[in-house]
């Protein structure tokens, strides 16, 4: 019995719960013409696990994707065809941004920033959003380094 076994038990135990949580968001998003199938939900949960693992992060809970749905479902750039795929891309962008800003920015700040760029400067393009976030994080890290240097 060790740390990984303790952590993995959470993932296995909660997978079905997470899928159902995602499907429950359909109740609200349906009004906007967006709906996730069980297969979409399963894909989003798997992507989340993969992304967290790839970027060396742990999330005990499911708050980020639910918040992304809440925030982005009202976007005019998201439709039924690209909904699930965009959510997958957005959650990856979110966790990359968490790492790149060295955990100094809170979840809500990052989501607000992503939404603002997505809607305005990126015109709904996830590729452009990635580029913009990279520039922001680079700038942020430089500021952090300067601050550290002063201290």
């Amino acid at each position: 019995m060790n740390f990984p076994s303790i952590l993995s038990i959470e993932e296995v135990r909660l997978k079905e719960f997470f899928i159902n949580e995602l499907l429950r968001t359909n109740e609200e998003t349906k009004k906007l013409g967006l709906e996730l199938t069980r297969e979409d939900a399963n894909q989003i949960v798997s992507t989340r696990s993969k992304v967290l693992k790839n970027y060396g992060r742990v999330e005990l809970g499911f708050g980020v994707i639910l918040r992304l749905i809440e925030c982005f479902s009202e976007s005019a750039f998201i439709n039924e065809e690209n909904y699930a795929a965009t959510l997958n891309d957005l959650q990856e962008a979110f966790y990359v941004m968490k790492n790149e800003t060295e955990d100094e920015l809170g979840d809500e700040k990052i989501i607000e920033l992503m939404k603002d760029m997505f809607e305005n400067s990126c015109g709904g393009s996830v590729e452009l959003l990635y580029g913009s976030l990279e520039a922001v994080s680079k700038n942020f890290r430089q500021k952090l380094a300067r601050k550290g240097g002063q201290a």
Partner: protein
Amino acid sequence: MMSFAMGNELQLESRILIDRERLDENQYTLSLLQEGINAGVFSSTEVSNVQINIMELLKELIMRYTKGESTSVTVDTTERLLSSILYSIDFYLLGFDDTNEALINLKEKSIRKIYEQGLEQLRLCLADTKDLYLKIRKTRLKLDIEAYNATIDEAIPVFFEKYNIVFDAHMTMATIDYPLVFDDMRVRGITYIKNYLRNLEAETQYCRLFSDQDINKLLQSFGRMCRLNHRIELINIFELLLNNSIFSVMCGNSAKQLSITKEKLNALAENLRRTDSKSLKKLIDDAVAAIIDDFQIGDRFLIKYITRYKKQFEARIINALENNSLNSFAVTEEEDNRKAEMKFAFDEVRSMSHKEFREMVDKILKQSKAESKINIINSRVWSLQDFMDILSSDCLFCDEYGLLFDTLGDVEIAVLSCQVFYEEFRDGLEDLYSIIRNKREYEAEWQGYFAEFIAELGNDRTKSIKALIAEIDHGEIML
């Protein structure tokens, strides 16, 4: 699978079933759960519930750690926070002397309750340990021993400053250099520091039975004996004092008398070689008993500590007798007084100011002839530190180093040799030629030229320098 009711009968049953040898104090709860499963005390559902409850605590701690601003953290942070939680749970469960009681608590109590009680106990332990540290600081030995002073003045305060029982309970964030006779490095966190300080207190208590002057004298003799600078080396003072007290008693002296003559030690070695191991053990037992009696040591922890050390001493003395090296185990008093007659050509009191030094370097750099450079150095430099700084300041080139060394007397060359070949002398090497042949790297360029200079000296002069090196107190001249 047995149902774990709280009856004494079942407690006894589980007492037999748990394999204590397999319990790991550093992962106590996890190993207790594992052994609990093996013994049928826990069902897999119960273990799974414990894990889920730990996850809940972790989730809350992550939120606390990120001040509610982030639901995710890096794997490293997760492991750190999880380790901290498990350390607190372990701390509570390790508080039970009886493994069975720990097991019952783990089965009966909620993990949250155990965690909270663990945190409370950690808080108390931290406060007790701080008190213990203050006591040690107050009663510390007044000795110029770098590792001892740095541990008390810097390492331990840094630990208290950084230690956080909520997020880093398992961490031992301190660079503790001073070595103790018993130091269990397998334990972590506040438990390690508490154990360290408790042992340091016991050792200090024993050392304080001697005057600082006597301790210093013994340390100096030890330094000369091993050709090392006792101020910077990692030496355990307690061990040195206790060894000499035991030898002193074995030689027929009082425990309070630290000095032993070479003759007495040789006679003792002769006697001990004829003694069988049972009688030797008895002699050591008697000597330790006499020490405790002579000093009227009443502190149980210290008596236990000294008694525990007896076994180490016994093993070392057997080894020393087999290798005919008892004289490197006990510190004997020095008979001759040649050292007192030795006059150092260097005078640290006459060291130059930074400005004076800079001016001299500029002046030397303007000279084209080696002779002029050497004249300036010899007329202005008095301290060893300044002399070595000049050697390192790129004022001299190639042969000029040799010409400068040639103007030095034997004592100065011996002193410089102690600086350049410190590690070799400390390791017991004596032959300068062989040291130079085998030394691959030098810290500074001038040291290489110095080695070349020594290698070319005649036998008679080298012999005289070697004799002087043996007389030098390495602690006195180390910079």
